[in-house]
């Protein structure tokens, strides 16, 4: 009988993040919330900050995100996560605080709270999942819904003449002096997912350095409410959403001279 060597046969290259719980998620098949959760959890693991991190969940599909992250968590009222996070962070200035919000929560009912958190330069990080629709309530029109996009509350397609055009929150918030880091990424393919993870890392580093408000907008899929197969939903992000919500860096912290020139839209915040 062959005795196997005591050392591991395989070197683990991919593990379950310690910052995720083992609770099965409620997200629909093909939804990218799970991808976003995993990326955030991986970064928290890599930075070694799980025990120093406090999340603030919002209302919408991500209402249960507190179940899936193995960190302290608060559950905010609809749209109020940035205000609640302000209280959490001001009371815990040495901790890492993040909100996890969808587009109905952040861009509609919570528009004032997100704007003024940025204005004050609140030193926490916002993960903004934009899937251009209200998911939890069953697919109603959001401020981010594309022109012509059919939803249960815009059954003939969103008419910009009466309901406005998609609201670009990253571009809006990048205008605010208190915002240190505002970028938009997408979760529609592997390359974009890897870029998204780098942005998540950068945002939390910005917070750790005390540079001010940081936000990573992540274009996400909602196959269920879009009425698309999961792969078609990813294509919808790429083909329909990205042209309206261009990917890029809208605000970056001022770099030391040697590292300058990383991207356009630099806004200083000492």
């Amino acid at each position: 009988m062959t005795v196997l060597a005591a050392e591991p046969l395989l070197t683990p290259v991919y593990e379950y993040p310690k910052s995720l719980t083992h609770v099965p998620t409620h997200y629909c098949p093909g939804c990218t919330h799970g991808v976003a959760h995993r990326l955030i959890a991986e970064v928290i693991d890599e930075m070694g900050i799980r025990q120093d991190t406090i999340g603030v969940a919002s209302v919408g599909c991500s209402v249960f995100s507190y179940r899936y992250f193995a960190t302290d968590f608060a559950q905010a009222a609809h749209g109020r996560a940035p205000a609640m996070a302000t209280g959490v962070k001001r009371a815990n200035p040495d901790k890492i605080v993040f909100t996890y919000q969808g587009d109905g929560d952040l861009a509609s009912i919570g528009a004032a709270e997100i704007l003024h958190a940025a204005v004050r330069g609140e030193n926490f990080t916002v993960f903004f999942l934009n899937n251009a629709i209200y998911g939890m309530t069953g697919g109603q029109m959001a401020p981010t819904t594309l022109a012509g996009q059919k939803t249960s509350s815009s059954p003939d397609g969103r008419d910009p003449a009466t309901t406005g055009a998609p609201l670009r929150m990253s571009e809006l918030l990048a205008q605010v002096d208190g915002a240190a880091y505002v970028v938009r990424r997408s979760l529609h393919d592997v390359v974009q997912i890897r870029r998204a993870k780098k942005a998540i890392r950068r945002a939390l580093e910005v917070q750790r350095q005390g540079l001010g408000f940081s936000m990573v907008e992540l274009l996400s899929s909602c196959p269920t409410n879009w009425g698309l197969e999961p792969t078609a939903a990813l294509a919808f992000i790429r083909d329909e959403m990205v042209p309206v919500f261009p990917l890029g860096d809208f605000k970056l912290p001022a770099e030391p001279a040697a590292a300058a020139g990383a991207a356009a839209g630099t806004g200083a915040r000492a």
Partner: protein
Amino acid sequence: MSIELLKGNVAFAEAAVRAGCEAYFGYPITPQTEALEHMARRMPELGRVFVQAESEVAAINMVYGAAAAGVRTMTSSSSPGVSLMMEGLSYMAGSEVPAVLVDVMRGGPGLGNIAPAQGDYLQIVKGGGHGDYKMIVLAPANVQEMIDLTVLAFDLADRYRIVTVLLADGSLGQMMEGATLPPLRPLTERPAWALTGARERDTNLVSSIHLDPEELARFNDHLQAKYAEIEANEVRFEEHRLDDARVGVVAFGTAARVAKTAIAAVRDEGVAAGLLRPISLWPYPEAALRALAERVDALLVVEMNAGQMVEDVRRVVEGRVPVRFFGRTGGIMPMPEEIADAIREVADAAGAGAPEAQPQEVNA
């Protein structure tokens, strides 16, 4: 400890500082703004948190966040601003975080005016926000009580993990009186349930969601049991000249203060009136009121509104004696003589009027 001349709004704000408030969030609104201004200077001076929020909606949610982090925290506002806080207060009740809210009431409804009123009684005492919840409600009647009840509010909030409201009015906020402030207390420790990072412990969650109906029902049972404990332990009231009273006046806050002057006036005429002043509006002094209703001929409720607490008085008295109401609205404070007239009318109707006003009894 020395007596200082203090404005009510400054007095309660400084009392909060002395009680160990670590984080204040607020929004300017008359007639409480001096409290916000005091905190803007005092809190940073002590290395504590002061944030002027973008709205009362944001302010109460910042309080929610700081409370979830386990520090003593508060906001203050006035009626229209407090209306905007109802959502946050319901969430805070639903997640059992302690905090203090001061409502310096003004005339309503709507934008109303900036004059003193008591029109938020039902909103604050009965809920205001959605769902079955209670807040401890304390009603000061002078600047010293603005101080003492603010300190008590923080202690009760922590003890029961509940929002405690100081329900004042514009006159209490704006008036200056001699009062004594307590010494500066040390800051409280963060409770075990607070969000401080899961270092050497399991993760903590502050949440008001219980999707499973049975689970939510059990949580509500827990809240109701806690409320019953508060009702058993935290009733506060003042009895004033009630020993021989035949007419009982029931009033809180500024209205009670004016009523005392009226009672002195009618007593000089021989009308045996006295005052029951609820200090805790929830829990309500039901036993004291019921006992009073057993021994007086009539009750008169005086409020600076169109009749709100009177609903509670009638509920508790259950028809034992006539309950009359006298109120002024519009931000008008009742004059002592108006209240005295109301007492005389109630006394006469109940056969407890001044000797010369009573019908002569036939020789028995």
